């Protein structure tokens, strides 16, 4: 399936290797993960023959891109700026092409409650939820609001920051006494908390790529963390989580999971690549949890596993995405 990256060749010009800047780092909780993703992308692209430079998204970035333009930028930033659409909006202003979803779609996907509303409207199942800022608890009385939340959503609950990835700040609350402390530690990550009904089941990572023929779901990666909880440590410590690719689910479930991932990708207006996290409940239903516009690309990340399981080479896929963006104006 592998295909050599085609560099953009304007007619009459000498072909040149595709030049890209891989953005990694950033000023967020996920900096370390991003540096790890970025390094992997940079190595893979170099292997695929792309002239790639790895750099942080800081005050030097825009002058650097102006002085040495890239055919397209690859955003391996996780967390705010890289994923919330802000950086992409600035790249749009600067006329710099980039791989991945447009700014507005990113903003929507970044806001997990908003994304859940959109995908639910598109007919996709997602666990019931409520998202509230700290001020609501303060003004209406935390006890009253939490009581209502538990009464309507039940236990266990998933408590997570309304934006951000890598499972930072995510907690499963099984006993009501744990809830106030869970809220306190979750609000340390951001001003809005998303509280979701917990769905028991098999966790799946559903990667989607679009190499030009429309969004294509890659084989689902099943996640089986040793500790039972797919938290930050389970994600980024090799050996602490077992991954099964393709997932050990029936063909029917696999097909519906793939369909869900593509529907989410389209409903939110995403482009090029995405990774949807979902859960398969014992009745075989697939439930949407959240979507990442800048999926992890580290050695232990699920997106590269899915790419490989589909018979692609990661470097080739990334190079093809770059080549497409280098040729097309948004």
């Amino acid at each position: 399936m592998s295909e050599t990256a085609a560099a953009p060749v304007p007619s009459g010009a000498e072909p040149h290797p595709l030049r890209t800047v891989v953005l990694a780092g950033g000023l967020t909780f996920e900096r370390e993960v991003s540096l790890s993703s970025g390094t992997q992308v940079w190595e893979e692209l170099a292997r695929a023959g792309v002239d790639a430079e790895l750099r942080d998204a800081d005050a030097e970035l825009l002058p650097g891109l102006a002085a040495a333009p890239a055919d397209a930028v690859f955003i391996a930033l996780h967390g705010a700026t890289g994923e919330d659409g802000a950086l992409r909006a600035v790249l749009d202003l600067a006329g710099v092409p980039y791989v991945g979803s447009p700014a507005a779609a990113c903003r929507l996907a970044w806001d997990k409650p908003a994304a859940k509303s959109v995908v639910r409207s598109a007919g996709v199942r997602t666990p019931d939820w409520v998202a509230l800022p700290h001020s609501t608890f303060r003004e209406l009385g935390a006890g009253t609001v939490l009581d209502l939340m538990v009464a309507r959503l039940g236990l266990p609950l998933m408590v997570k920051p309304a934006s951000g990835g890598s499972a930072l700040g995510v907690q499963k609350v099984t006993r009501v006494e744990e809830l106030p402390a869970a809220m306190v530690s979750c609000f340390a990550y951001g001003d809005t908390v998303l509280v979701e009904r917990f769905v028991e089941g098999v966790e799946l990572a559903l990667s989607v790529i679009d190499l030009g023929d429309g969004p294509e779901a890659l084989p689902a990666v099943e996640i089986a963390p040793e500790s039972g909880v797919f938290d930050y440590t389970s994600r980024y410590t090799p050996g602490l989580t077992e991954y099964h690719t393709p997932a050990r689910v029936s063909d029917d479930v696999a097909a519906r999971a793939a369909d869900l991932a593509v529907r989410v990708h389209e409903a939110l207006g995403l482009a090029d690549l995405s990774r949807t996290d979902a859960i398969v409940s014992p009745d075989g239903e697939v439930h949407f949890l959240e979507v990442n516009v800048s999926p992890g690309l580290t050695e232990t990340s699920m997106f590269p596993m899915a790419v490989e399981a589909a018979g692609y080479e990661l470097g080739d896929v990334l190079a093809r995405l770059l080549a497409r963006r280098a040729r097309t104006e948004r």
Partner: protein
Amino acid sequence: MKTSEIRALFSVVSRPEVVSLAGGMPAVTALPLDAVGSMIGELVSGMGAQTLQYGSGQGDPRLRERICDVMALEGIRDASPSEVVVTVGSQQGLDLVTRVFVDPGDVILAEGPSYVGALGVFQAAEARVRHVAMDDNGLIPEALEEALVDCRANGDRVKFLYTVPNFHNPAGVTLSEARREAVVALAEKYDLLIIEDNPYGLLGFEGEPMRALRARNNQRVIYLGSFSKTFSPGLRVGWVLAPLAVREKLVLATEAQVLCPPSLTQYAVARYLDTQPWREQIKLFTELYRERRDATLESLATLMPAGAAWTRPDGGFYVWLKLPHGLDAKLMQPRAVNAHVAYVPGIGFFADGNGREYMRLSYCYPEPDQIREGVRRLARVIEAELDLHSTFDRVDTGTFRAVRPAGREAETIVGPANSDTYEDGR
């Protein structure tokens, strides 16, 4: 939140937007860099045959002589160069001592809190660390005696007391003169070995250096020294001063680990001590650190909310801050990252999970203005966290309907399996 998450949050410290009160990096740019540069250049061009060659496992004899001169400043006048083993920083010295003395399951007594790098070494040796309480005057001798009695009663083998008596990392406090005598007397009484780790002893802001524990007892104290804070941490030159019988074992252990400490950096330190005004340089360092300590303490006094308390170091690099009641420095860390200020959560300095309400602030590296800005940001973070706690701490979940349904089963109150009635609250 696990250790790996703390490490991940630390990643942002490398960005200039973040004021780091976290790392303990000495202010090396205050060194006469040109002079040091030409000195090291000459060591290679003029003495390459020695400086680029293997050396002895115990370390360069000339350097060991000079190390004895340095230790004399803290009252250690009976040390001979043959009792000194040069190590790759005092960290390797601590590792060697631990390898020589400790078997899995042995008990090591250490101040609570204790230097995180030491706890790592002890953990690797599968030792059990028992913390001994300290206060503004350092380790509390009564608490030490209680721990020794307890361990004896439990049949625990106590291998040594690990202590940082001067300008403690992380607590910032110094063991008082009276307590030094008491601790050494306890060592005699209980046949206890003391590992005296003293990287900061010459960095006092006023008065003469305190007399070392090793100066009071040359058989029961093994002394760890370092040039990392008085000269350069990048050169990685430290040492162990130990009785001859122990020294033999340390040399064998270091030869197995690294063959010999790096020759070039040992020559660099020896030449620096021979040719540069190193005492004046230490004075310059302490003046710089005192100014930063003052900026830290002044800002804390002005800006910290009620309920916070902190130590007032007379030297060294660190202030140990206790948060207002109920706050957890580790859980607060994401908020601090958002506010672009970094510190080290206290839990890392305990082997037993304590220390959640503490944090270590380092003032050695940032300039005074940055320190003031960092403390300002930190104060805002703490205030926001207090606000959050005031919202959630008083919630009585025991009164929730799902817990005590009023005459109905909890299941009937819990919401429907997948209704579309919820809005996202925006």
